[in-house]
């Protein structure tokens, strides 16, 4: 269904009063559903629903030569594809959000926090290291594929196990070493704030996202009592004010705590 003027007006007006059509508060996210190990060929995998937005994520481990400036570290690559019918849009053409942008933003969210202990993924210094390849597939887009993708990647990483590697023979994918992917305590969470009208909100549905023309994604982790920002990305064509920027950073601290609690209940290693 095309976005109508009356819905647009309604959403913006309600948001001024702190209300949303589905009854949520502006910084409240939709229900999260996580299922892990959905593909036994992946070293780690997960299926995540954020409201009706749905992604499937898989992690594969391969070996490669390390990069010359990081001879003792494993590598990380994130890719994303979106089901071309996923949003059932009335308008023809490519999806509004770019799969490449999502992949790169999710990548930086994981990489910059140093969540994966890449040093422990070194098999032989300077010669051979593990390469972590995360592939995200967007099955349904009802808004906020960005954050759904990140939760998917996080969930898949947490259950990823390293396959057996035998020198001279290579990787034995049908055997698992029973060792989990080495993850550090620097778990970062990603949250994207969208500007709708003059107000900010989290986790928009499709209509809210269609109305929004500016967003800011942050990846945040906790260090003692402090919250550390590891990556940021402003998206879409409109500007955000400095006032918005400050409000976002302030709100992000609260959101981190709530989201962290919620996700820990849902994903168990």
């Amino acid at each position, binding site marked *: *269904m095309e*976005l*109508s*003027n*009356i819905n647009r007006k309604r959403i913006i007006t309600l948001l001024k009063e702190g209300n949303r059509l589905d009854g949520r508060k502006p910084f409240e996210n939709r229900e999260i559903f996580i299922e892990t190990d959905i593909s036994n060929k992946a070293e780690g995998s997960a299926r995540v629903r954020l409201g009706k937005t749905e992604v499937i994520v898989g992690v594969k481990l391969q070996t490669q030569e390390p990069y010359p400036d990081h001879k003792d570290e494993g590598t990380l690559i994130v890719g994303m594809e979106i089901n071309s019918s996923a949003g059932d849009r009335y308008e023809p053409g490519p999806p509004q959000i770019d799969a490449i942008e999502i992949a790169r933003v999710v990548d930086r969210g994981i990489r910059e926090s140093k969540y994966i202990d890449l040093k422990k993924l070194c098999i032989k210094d300077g010669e051979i290291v593990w390469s972590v390849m995360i592939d995200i597939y967007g099955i349904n887009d009802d808004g906020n594929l960005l954050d759904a993708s990140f939760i998917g990647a996080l969930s898949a990483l947490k259950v990823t196990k390293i396959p057996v590697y035998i020198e001279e023979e290579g990787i034995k994918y049908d055997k698992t070493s029973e060792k989990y992917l080495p993850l550090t305590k620097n778990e970062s969470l990603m949250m994207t704030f969208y500007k709708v009208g003059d107000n900010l909100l989290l986790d928009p549905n499709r209509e809210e996202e269609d109305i929004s023309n500016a967003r800011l994604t942050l990846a945040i982790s906790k260090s003692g009592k402090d919250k550390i920002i590891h990556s940021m990305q402003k998206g879409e064509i409109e500007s955000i004010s400095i006032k918005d920027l400050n409000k976002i950073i302030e709100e992000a601290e609260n959101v981190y705590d709530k989201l962290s609690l919620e996700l820990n209940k849902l994903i168990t290693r």
Partner: protein
Amino acid sequence: MEEERLEEISDNNFDEKTDRKLVIPGEIIVSGEDYLPGDFTKKELNNIVANRYGLAEIRGRVVKIIPVSGVFEPRRGNNVIGIVSDINFSGWRMDIGGPWGAFLPLSEYPKFINRNNIEEIANIGDVFSLKILGVKRGSVDLTLKFRGLGKLEDGRIIKINCHKVPRIIGKEGSMINLIKNKTGTDIMVGQNGFIWLKGEFENERKAEEAIRLIERESASEGLTNKVEEFLEK
């Protein structure tokens, strides 16, 4: 507009106690020389075979399928709600769901129009209640030239499974009127599954929840009671 629409709703009268069973394409519903193939069925030798996933219903000699899923299939005379998606020199393209684009020509607007202010009358994103004049290969023709049709201001629209519309309206409008009265919300139901609501925020949300409840549980017994109970809360 309400009266007109209700008479045109197909007579899928769910109150009658007819046995309906869910069938799949290719399934033999019933065998026998006397039976006649109705909607979405085909007669093959002595068998009436389903050509669509849905509820098979036998009334007298006629066997038909009542769809439970699938996109809106536009028919002449349908009352629908549409959203303007494009404007050109001869009229407005509208999104009414379904397999084809729909078009409202200038000539089907009930007043005289100055071509220079087409956008003022109906701009992209505006919402209208309209009637389908005709369906020809690949496109749907719309009109506003009936009483009760026109632009819908304020409020908002939601989309539901169009096959649940009869259930949401109810026998002679009983169900939809129940929701309207209990929530004090203005509601207009398009046969294409687009529904317009306008009311005070909390009441409007309640009305939407009630509609979604009916959409989910349309097959259950005692649905009216469930809805009443929900609206009382």
